[in-house]
């Protein structure tokens, strides 16, 4: 029961936390108030999940199932609110809510523009998805703030919820990873806070819109302003997990439960990246970069480095979840590259890739979860021949992986296209090269997985042979040839891999075409449950956990969304256009 409470209680907070940090452009406060539609919805966006989470906590003590239902209702409500808000943003341009009637810069104002509406919607939708998947979590909310200190508070709430979620894993490793995450996350948040302090000392205000004006008055080249930028960016960089500030992230992702990994990867880092856009564009504005080209270059090249380093590390991993975790380092690098380009195409690309990555990476983790439940496969070697045992999840995984690689027309490609366009327009050949090469870098680690899932015979992953093969792999992971031979070595040491292979083929050959799809590769499959696994996705599993139709549906749906989003990129851009104009002005 406690785990339920845990997830139920904290998840919602995450949402809240995640909540919302939105802001406005450098337009003056008065202008902001004059040009925006007022609405009671933004605070609801924050309040609903909070209330729901308290309700789930209370009810969850007695009735597990009821808690889930409440959470689900809350999440759906949240989607409705976020959807309505997004629609209002489309029609009215910008929606604000002045809290308690205290006008900024003295009070706090919630501002929803195209960007924050999108992030809000993303959070709400992902929550529903993860909820359906987990069938035991709570809702989350989202907020929008136009105040940098408020941003800190919400970042910390997000962080707290995330730490708790990571720690909800069963193993002691989860606790260690959570503590590491907590320490580094706190340092990141503290640095952000220090940055806020510098901004405050330089300007005397905290409201984004007001700050933007005041920072310009103070002068972008003054030391406190620069320090403010540096500390805020580095602080957020830790939270986003950009190389080399990423060290908490692989542990946290791989040690937490699968649903949690999905949730964190899809939302927590995403929200931090969103905060980065706000800080860079709404607070410091493009002119800051113009006055401090070094700051831009550092951010840009640091992000580019993150792309390369993340991919390289991803290739060397044995565990699938760690591979995906390092992949996030790389993909967020790409997002940050887009942001740092400070031109329209780059920014659009960054945002699209941010959203796309949330959908793709989150779903990849969910797919990994399904696969783990069904087959206990967690390492890359164990993924051999998976496609026959878990066809639907494998197919979704493959589609998502190719989308992530950037095969058009999926969303992964569209984001990359914009970022690349931005890099070329900005006259950054090196960065353009990195962006282009990121396709191949991503291919390097995903192709390895897909090949194993679809075209490798199943090997005995539980016996001693498997262990030997694993040992050989880690050093050879980078090179397909070596790894192949390493596996074979291991195989011959214990179980004769060749024999296993041959059995598999015999089995296959004796079968007729009719049941090929349902082929079990029984010859090599020691799990023994693979035979029935094929056509019915909801069958027995070795560990006692169940894969529900809902879980599979979420993953499949996400794969479709990943492709469809690519085709809808124009609409996304249209939604963002007014916001972009403000941000880039």
């Amino acid at each position: 029961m406690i785990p339920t409470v845990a997830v139920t209680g904290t998840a919602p907070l995450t949402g809240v936390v995640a909540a919302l940090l939105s802001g406005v452009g450098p337009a003056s406060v008065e202008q902001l108030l004059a040009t925006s539609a007022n609405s009671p919805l933004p605070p609801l966006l924050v309040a609903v999940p909070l209330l729901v989470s308290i309700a789930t906590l209370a009810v969850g003590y007695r009735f597990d199932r009821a808690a889930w239902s409440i959470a689900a209702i809350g999440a759906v409500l949240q989607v409705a609110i976020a959807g309505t808000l997004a629609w209002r943003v489309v029609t009215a341009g910008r929606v604000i809510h002045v809290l308690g009637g205290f006008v900024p810069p003295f009070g706090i104002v919630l501002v929803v523009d195209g960007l924050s509406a999108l992030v809000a919607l993303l959070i709400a939708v992902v929550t529903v998805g993860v909820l359906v998947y987990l069938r035991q979590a709570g809702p989350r909310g989202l907020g929008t703030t136009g105040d940098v200190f408020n941003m800190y508070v919400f970042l910390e709430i997000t962080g707290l919820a995330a730490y708790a979620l990571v720690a909800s894993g069963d193993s002691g490793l989860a606790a260690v990873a959570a503590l590491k995450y907590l320490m580094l996350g706190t340092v990141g948040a503290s640095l952000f806070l220090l940055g806020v302090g510098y901004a405050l000392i330089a300007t005397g205000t905290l409201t984004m819109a007001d700050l933007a004006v005041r920072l310009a008055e103070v002068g972008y080249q003054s030391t406190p302003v620069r320090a403010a930028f540096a500390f805020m960016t580095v602080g957020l960089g830790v939270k986003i997990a950009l190389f080399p500030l990423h060290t908490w992230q692989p542990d946290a992702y791989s040690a937490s439960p699968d649903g949690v990994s999905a949730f964190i990867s899809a939302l927590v880092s995403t929200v931090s990246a969103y905060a980065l856009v706000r800080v860079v564009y709404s607070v410091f504005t493009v002119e800051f970069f113009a006055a401090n080209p070094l700051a831009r270059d550092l951010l840009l090249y640091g992000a580019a480095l993150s792309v390369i380093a993340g991919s390289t590390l991803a290739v060397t991993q044995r565990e699938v979840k760690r591979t995906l975790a390092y992949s996030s380092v790389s993909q967020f690098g790409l997002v940050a590259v887009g942001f740092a380009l400070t031109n329209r195409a780059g920014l659009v690309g960054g945002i699209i890739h941010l959203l796309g990555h949330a959908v793709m990476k989150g779903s990849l983790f969910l797919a990994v979860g399904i696969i783990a439940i069904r087959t206990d496969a967690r390492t890359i070697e164990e993924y051999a021949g998976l496609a026959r045992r878990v066809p639907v999840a494998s197919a979704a995984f493959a589609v998502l992986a190719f989308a992530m690689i950037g095969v058009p027309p999926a969303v992964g490609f569209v984001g990359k296209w914009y970022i690349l366009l931005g890099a070329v327009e900005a006259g950054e050949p090196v960065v353009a090269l990195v962006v282009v090469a990121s396709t191949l870098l991503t291919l390097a680690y995903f192709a390895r997985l897909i090949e194993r899932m679809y075209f490798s015979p199943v090997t005995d992953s539980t016996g001693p042979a498997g262990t030997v093969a694993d040992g050989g792999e880690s050093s050879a992971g980078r090179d397909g040839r070596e790894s192949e031979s390493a596996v074979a070595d291991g195989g011959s040491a214990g179980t004769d891999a060749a024999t296993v292979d041959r059995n598999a083929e015999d089995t296959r050959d004796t079968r007729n075409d009719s049941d090929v799809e349902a082929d079990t590769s029984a010859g090599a499959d020691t799990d023994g449950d693979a035979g029935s696994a094929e056509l019915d996705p909801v069958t027995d599993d070795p560990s006692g956990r169940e894969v529900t139709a809902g879980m599979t549906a979420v993953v499949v749906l996400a794969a479709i969304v990943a492709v469809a989003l690519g085709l809808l990129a124009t609409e996304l851009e249209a939604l963002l256009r007014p916001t972009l104009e403000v941000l880039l002005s």
Partner: protein
Amino acid sequence: MIETGSLRPLGAVLVAALSIVGIVVFRARPNVREGWSVLGALGTVAVIASMVPGVLAGQAYVTDLGTFVPGVRFALRVDPLGLLFGLLASLLWVITTFYSIGYMRGLDEHAQTRYFAAFAASVAAAVGVAFARNLLVLFVFYELLTVATYPLVTHDETGEARAAGRKYLAYTFGGGVAVLAGTVLLYVLTGTTAFTPGGIAALAEADPVLARAVFALLLTGFGVKAALMPLHSWLPDAMVAPTPVSGLLHAVAVVKSGVFGIARVVLDVYGPGLMGDLGVGLPLAAIAAFTLLTASVIALRKDNLKRRLAYSTISQLSYIVLGLAILSPASMVGGLLHIPAHAFMKLTLFFCAGAIHVETHTDDISDMAGIGRRMPVTMLAFAVASAGMAGIPLVAGFVSKWYLLIGSVGSGQAIFAVVLLLSGVLNIAYFWPIVYQAFFETPEASDRKPLVESPLGGRYGDGPAATRADGGRPGDGRDEDPKGDRSESDRNDTAATETPLGSGTTRETDSEAAGETPPPETQDSPTETDAVQSEGEQAVDRYPSDHALPGDDRERDENTADSKNETAGPGEDRESSEHSTFHDHAYDEPHGPPAGGWEQRAFGEESSWFVLGPILTVVAGAVVLGIVPYWAIFLRVVELIVAGVTGTPRVVG
């Protein structure tokens, strides 16, 4: 050209794509599933054919699906060039589908649903490539084509198939990246990526250095799939795929999508005029000429039939590129016409190779002496198609090569005419021995192939145990350590294949040859026994170091499978691939020639009609193209294309 809004371009892609659904849904019922394949193929070709009259009348059909990314519409358009490729791919898909059915069932292959689904997806993507309205949409389908073909290359799921698939992905995605970079640069330079016959006007005003860079990027990208040297090495490896795949995809759809991309770039992005101004035509032509000759020479040395065909493909694709690069109207007609011409001929050849494989499990040319008795129709078709490849009149290849010759001489670049003629000779050199020995030799009395290793004309009386050209001796190089295996055989091969011709390509060919030893994996006990019995002969075979006991073989296969640079044998069938080791060993039934030579089979009894029918159809197509090219539509379409680009109404009387 009048543009007409129409759903038919989209329809053509969708029909092919939707057939996948049917194929997957009815995976448990092979007959219905194959019915969907056929239906999809017929539907696609019908939709495309319905546009032929309109296009010939100067119309273009456009489906506009809205903006994809700013400044770029997601639009499909059927213009003459697109029609040429789309019609070709879909037409041959119909034929190949029937052939696939015969082939896959004949071999009782695994994962047939995946095979047919991926096949349909590949063709859908190829049609998309054909009809793309602009470079970015073309890129979209180009990448999808890569993904869709990958399962086909790796179909076998053996170590070597995976290695080939990996190589294929690395090469083609690498190429895709270059195309993407080029497209972005082009967009930044000109603000558009739309194809314009005669070239994008704004490009002429762009910085020439950047324009050349874009050209180089695009060419590199498309050159991968077009197998221009030195980007070709994925293609021979990909021959590990089932033969129909090698036939349609690796001789028509996939490789031609690369060539087609180059054609789009040359004709509709740069235009011949700007190409000349930038001076990029000549380097391209030089690369094509180099590829053309080198690949022909390598083909000479391939004993595995499919590999020889693969190198022949590499060489023939360069004809097309060469024709485009020479930039004269006549050569362009020749080059473009060679797209369908080569497709028909090469498909015939692959079908024949596949038929031989299905019926007799023979893959190596050296095993095929006298096979004309066993498979008369097949080998006859093979002979006709080979003749066409060499440019002998009355077959398709002649017409296109004729135009190419006229074009190169006419534009004062006679050097390329010499190259073309030389290549024709080489074509004969590597095809004629196959045909000759099939009909006029017997297994007992045949010379050894590949030809380069022995004097032209062959040498009779070589016993199987004789010292090999590669210097291998019986028992030489026995190597118990699997790890040492590769380097050992490499050394042997270096000695074996050193030829006067091996300049820049020697290394390449060495490693190719190194892999020629197939994975001696055995499946059925009779074969295994054979393998043991024939140990003595094996040891003296061309790659002594590869020899080991069968048990070791299996293990070593695992170890080295991926390190092999190429497929050892026709990957579609592990059972028989081991037998390609037994080059001159004539006694193992039923692989290779049976004892006492090939039995005589009558017309129609040599194979199933699922296999023979397609062969006859394609070869007939090749002949029709050669005799009445104008009537066969393709030449008309080609002339329309060239006229649109250059403004010359009729190129050659």
